[in-house]
């Protein structure tokens, strides 16, 4: 009963957030200068033709009218069609714009669904790397406040947070794939191509995880149940493994929920450098080509994932620590 109530409330809030995100993106795209029709029709197209096309596509209506039309489609599961990408996946280009060919353009939904699994694979691997590494460094640091593992954790996180992801991508490509030939780097041609981008993302994610883990473990070690556990005859390793880690993982879980949009920002850059065919590359191309429906579709899908992840995180946190209420 409690879980049902919780789910209904959070899903309702989630719908509000998704609605606000799409409204925000929708308005922003239309307020900012840069005419998508100009991009589609090519620089040489006469102004009259551009106006004509824009009118036919409804791009000259008031923003709220356009948004209403779009939202009505989204509610029925229709994210619209890309402005520039053809369905057959051939090269994009505006010069051949021709209104009768509109039907051939790719569905935003298909584009997103094709790219999403690639990005999820990358994100999952990055998260696994980041958790393994920051678990090692963070737990050691949290158990030894004031001593060298703690200092090490502090300096590692300070240095990692200072490495620009695109630069690290270039340096590691140079080292690991050009000089040493250990890992493949550019494009996607099998699972091996995920490893290097995932390492870059993991480096970007780790600092916050290490900091949180260190401080929450240090705080838990000072709690009275740790001292009582020793009196009850539990070994130190058992107290740490069964009780401290369990309690210390709650702030970590919450952090993962918040870090999601940061991770997504990193994904955009990393996929761009490595030419990895995921959602990030799709996003950056869509933004640079002013492909409004595609940007909106991606924003809706990612904010939906954001909402779902945060609901799952809160559910997991309540099952770990039943005192928490949401």
């Amino acid at each position, binding site marked *: 009963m409690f879980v049902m109530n919780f789910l209904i409330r959070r899903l309702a809030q989630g719908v*509000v*957030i998704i609605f*606000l*995100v799409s409204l*925000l*993106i929708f308005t*922003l*795209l239309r307020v*900012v*200068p*840069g005419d998508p029709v100009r991009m589609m029709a090519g620089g040489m197209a006469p102004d009259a033709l551009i106006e004509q096309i824009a009118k036919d596509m409804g791009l000259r209506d008031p923003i709220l009218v356009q948004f209403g039309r779009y939202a009505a489609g989204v509610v029925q599961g229709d994210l619209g069609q890309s402005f520039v990408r053809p369905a057959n996946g051939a090269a994009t280009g505006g010069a051949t714009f021709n209104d009768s060919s509109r039907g051939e353009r790719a569905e935003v939904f298909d584009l997103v669904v094709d790219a999403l699994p690639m990005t999820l694979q990358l994100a999952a691997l990055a998260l696994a790397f980041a958790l393994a590494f920051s678990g090692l460094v963070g737990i050691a640091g949290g158990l030894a406040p004031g001593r060298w593992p703690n*200092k090490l954790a*502090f*300096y590692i*996180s*300070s*240095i990692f*947070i*200072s*490495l*620009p*992801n*695109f*630069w*690290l991508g*270039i*340096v590691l*490509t*140079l080292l690991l794939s*050009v000089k040493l030939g250990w890992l493949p780097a550019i494009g996607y041609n099998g699972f091996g191509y995920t490893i290097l981008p995932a390492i870059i993302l993991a480096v970007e994610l780790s600092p916050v995880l290490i*900091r949180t883990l260190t*401080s929450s473990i240090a705080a838990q070690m000072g709690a009275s149940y740790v001292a009582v556990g020793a009196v009850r005859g539990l070994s130190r390793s058992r107290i740490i493994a069964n009780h401290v880690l369990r309690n210390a993982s709650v702030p970590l879980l919450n952090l993962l929920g*918040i870090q999601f*949009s*940061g991770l*997504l*920002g990193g994904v*955009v*850059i990393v996929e*761009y450098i490595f030419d990895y065919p995921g959602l990030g590359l799709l*996003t*950056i191309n869509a*933004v*640079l080509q*002013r492909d409004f429906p595609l*940007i909106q579709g991606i*924003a809706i899908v*990612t*904010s939906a994932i*954001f*909402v779902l992840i945060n609901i799952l995180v809160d559910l997991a946190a309540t099952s770990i620590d039943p005192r928490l209420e949401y």
Partner: protein
Amino acid sequence: MASLTSDTELPTPMLASQSIARRIFHRAVRSSAFRVGIVLFVILLLATTFYPELSGIDPTKMNVKARLLPPLFFGDNWSWAHPLGTDQIGRDMLVRTLVGLRYSFLIGVLSVVVTLLIGCAFGTVAGYFGGRIDAVIMRITDAQLSIPMIILAIAILGVSRPTIPAIVIVLGLSNWPVYARIMRSVMMTERQQEYVRAAKVSGANDASIILTLLLPLLLPPVLFTSILDIARMMIFESILGFLGLGVQPPTPTFGNIIADGRKYLMNAWWIATMPGLFLGLTLTSINLVGSALETARNAIHEGKS
């Protein structure tokens, strides 16, 4: 600095009577991370302020005879005149990097100032007045926080001309919700305090309570946290430059030097990697100082000394 550091030797009862901001600062100064960070930062700051002018090398001047020279002690044709080597058209990498650092730091600081102004204003209003204004502001922050700021920045700078003010405003606007939330939460707890109620009873209006009582007390700890954001903004500035949406060439910035050097990665690795090393060092120094301040702030809020 000298008079500030000597204050740390004061007995603890005196410390307790100091403002929270000064106690945080004193605690941070005692940590080794803060000292390492500040020394590194001052060296880099002096280098970026004086070296380009003192060396008399123009960061945009080409010299085809001295093109693609490697950094010191690498390869066989390195020279003392170009400690970090030269790029594909013979421009000195050290000067270009240090000039890039100037722009990066300038944009980083200015965009944090913009963020602070907007974020703290909204957060203060939301936290102090509560109710419907609070609900509206918080939902807007929710929505904006779920969109990665880099996408917003690319979307806007991709079409408008990426001048320095435009970049500062875009970066500043993209991060304000974080500060709105921090400010709101401290404001909400503080407005319940007795001295605020006393001021209200004695007839002070809301504006003067906020400006004379609450902000001087609550703002300094937030300012300490914002040092970490200067580093984040500098990274974002370099990402934008890398994508070609930052300050435009021929002005050297970290982003456009690295993007340029990427093309010559195979035969001149130093063009892309050296500026990044400098950026990394600068950011590390800022992050060490910022984290030391943050650790000190957390310790003091938990009531240790």
